[in-house]
């Protein structure tokens, strides 16, 4: 019998799976971040030699895909990219059948990017190999939250007493949900800012220590970290708020940034749209750590993969 090709019964996710931040414990997160600090893509370690990691991507991705791939290769693993176009997914193969197939060809772990919330959970319930969530619909993007935490800790001594503002389209953002869960676990005070269409009042129920603000000045004042989110123009189209109005009310400008702490950092998961959620000066300015975040994605994902395959030593 081929392992993994059985049971319609649900099981617990395989050890090492990373489905979301919400149900992780603080100490697990800190251990991962500690491991990430020991990872260096320029000094490859063959921890995952001969391990086969499938990158299963149902959505477009530049950063996440390339950094998972480089992370895997830096640890000596073999990677295969499977995308929805050009695979049996196009022919209507179900997510689970695709998973069983990849398991049968010998995948040791699957990194999954999927437009439906909960897709990695479904896979993890039916496959006996670790599933890494590389972004599921509007739900979570745990590796992004971890690399953001890694980045914050490079610039700030600890999470203790930090104030963080997250500005933009929280409703549609898996990055925001994961970030809220992670930072909230460490007592960070979080302000979510945007128009009601993007930041509904219910957003404050996501985790302890969250509040909602409709005024960017109020949200930014005195903060240590400002996280911006991409605003999709096509989403503004269907909303009451227009593009120009959004820019006028919520764009991060130099004068607004001055309200934050002097050593505040500006973060963005990318891709950024200059002139929309932030000005070009901010993107390229001294307080921006946007490129650093991308850079930190590789060691963070090395740590995630090493942990997934039991090589977290």
């Amino acid at each position, binding site marked *: 019998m081929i392992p993994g090709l059985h049971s*319609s019964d649900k099981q617990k996710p395989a050890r090492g799976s990373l489905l979301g931040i*919400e149900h992780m414990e603080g100490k697990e997160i800190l251990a991962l971040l500690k491991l990430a600090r020991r990872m260096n893509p320029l000094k490859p370690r063959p921890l995952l030699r001969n391990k086969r990691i499938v990158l299963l991507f149902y959505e477009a991705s530049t950063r996440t895909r390339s950094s998972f791939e480089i992370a895997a290769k830096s640890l000596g693993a073999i990677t295969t990219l499977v995308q929805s176009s050009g695979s049996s997914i196009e022919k209507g193969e*179900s*997510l*689970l059948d695709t998973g069983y197939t990849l398991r049968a060809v010998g995948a040791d772990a699957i990194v999954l990017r*999927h437009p*439906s*919330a*909960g*897709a990695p*959970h*479904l896979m993890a319930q*039916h496959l006996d190999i670790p599933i890494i969530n590389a972004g*599921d*619909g*509007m*739900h*979570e993007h745990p590796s992004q939250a971890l690399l953001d935490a890694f980045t914050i800790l490079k610039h700030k001594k600890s999470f203790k007493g930090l104030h963080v503002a997250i500005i933009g389209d929280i*409703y549609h953002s*898996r990055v925001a*949900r994961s970030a809220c869960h992670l930072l909230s676990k460490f007592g960070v005070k979080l302000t979510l800012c945007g128009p009601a269409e993007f930041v*509904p009042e*219910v*957003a404050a*129920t*996501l985790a302890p220590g969250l509040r909602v603000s409709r005024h960017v000045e109020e949200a930014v004042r005195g903060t240590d970290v400002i996280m911006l989110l991409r605003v999709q123009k096509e989403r503004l189209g269907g909303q009451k708020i227009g593009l120009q109005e959004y820019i006028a009310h919520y764009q991060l400008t130099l004068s607004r940034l001055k309200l934050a702490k002097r050593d505040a950092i500006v973060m963005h998961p990318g891709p950024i749209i200059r002139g929309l959620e932030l000005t070009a000066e901010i993107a390229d300015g001294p307080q921006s750590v946007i490129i650093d975040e991308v850079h930190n994605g590789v060691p963070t994902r090395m740590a995630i993969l090493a942990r997934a395959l039991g090589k977290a030593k």
Partner: protein
Amino acid sequence: MIKDKSKPGSLLIKGGHLIDPAAKIDAPMDVLLRDGRVAEIASPNKLRGGSDEKFDARGLIVAPGFIDLHVHLREPGQSYKETIASGTAAAAAGGFTSVCTMPNTAPVVDTAEWVEWLRSAERGAVVNVFPIAAATRLSRGASLTDFAALQRAGAVAVTDDGKPILDDEVMRAALRLGAELNLPVVQHAEDTRFTEGCPMHEGPTSFRLGLRGMSAAAEANIVDRDVNLAQQIRESRLHVAHLSTSDALKAVRRGKRTKARVTCEVTPHHFTLLDEDVGEYNTNFKMNPPLRSAADREAILVALADGTVDAIATDHAPHATHEKQVEFERAAFGITGLETALGLAITKLHRDHKISLMRTVELFTAGPARVFDLRSRGSLAKGNFADVTIFDPKKRWTFEAAKSRSLSRNTPFDGWQFTGKVVATIVGGRVVYRGD
């Protein structure tokens, strides 16, 4: 299951406690069934004359046969999910002696021929099947079906279940025609213009899971509109299917106060579960209407107790495993419910919420019989059909989905422990189910 295929003779149900809400009986009574009808009801040991068979009902509740106003038995067209035979076997195991089938099959039941097909003995039903026909052709919400012909063929109501009638004029016309024929129009109240791509209720849980939420207003607004129409159209009969929100209840109450002929049903899962029970994308908790907030459930429990709700209906909606083991957003809506309804009602309504057994039984019998005018059913008055449900209100048992009579296994209640179990189901004087 014991099935007696012979002509029903006489059966004496002896030593039980009869609860017949329509007749206001809540007392120890013996019940004699003969030739498919109720022959006699009398105080213990008062019945004279013999009977072919006796049923020892000591310690048990004897009730009129349960009626489910809302089931999907999937025939014609989707017999991999359920058949009339398997679905009615599940109904019998759940204590139901009559089920009303929804027309959203393949093809849609929008002609008299299909209504007759459903009622044909060849389908192998073990309980009574009352088809509900489509209200509009192909349930497309545009032109009405031939209500009169459907009714003559045996349809007890019309609906476009799953595809609500949104157009005001079409709904008005349906209620008008229904009024002429004394035929209820059943509405699945959901303003689908606002619920596209929404797999669950809108609230903290949908936000947490990153799923688009159906607002409570999408249900309440349609019920509100329909109640207004029912008030305007004399003698029209509106039945609100699987009502799930507090605001929709307010509209129903408003209709009832003004003596409009408005009725509603509630499912066991809506009086039991909450949206947060979806957990981590468990598709066996995905149905439409979705599980709602605690405040909605509270309002439903109050309405079940105070008489606003007319019936408990299961919305039994079987689906194959491969239709549920997919991404939450893509999973089919619906859960099975025939075999867990009584257990949930006794456990949640009677035991936990202290709703009387009389009222609980009413919601399965006299209530639904009134909603669709199922004559000579829903009560064990002398001369009525010999449909009887016998249950043990104290018996504890564990439901195992794997042992279900349904062809499908999509239930959120696998492994649940219930108080209250069906002991026997009798249809037309014949025992069609015998539990332990």
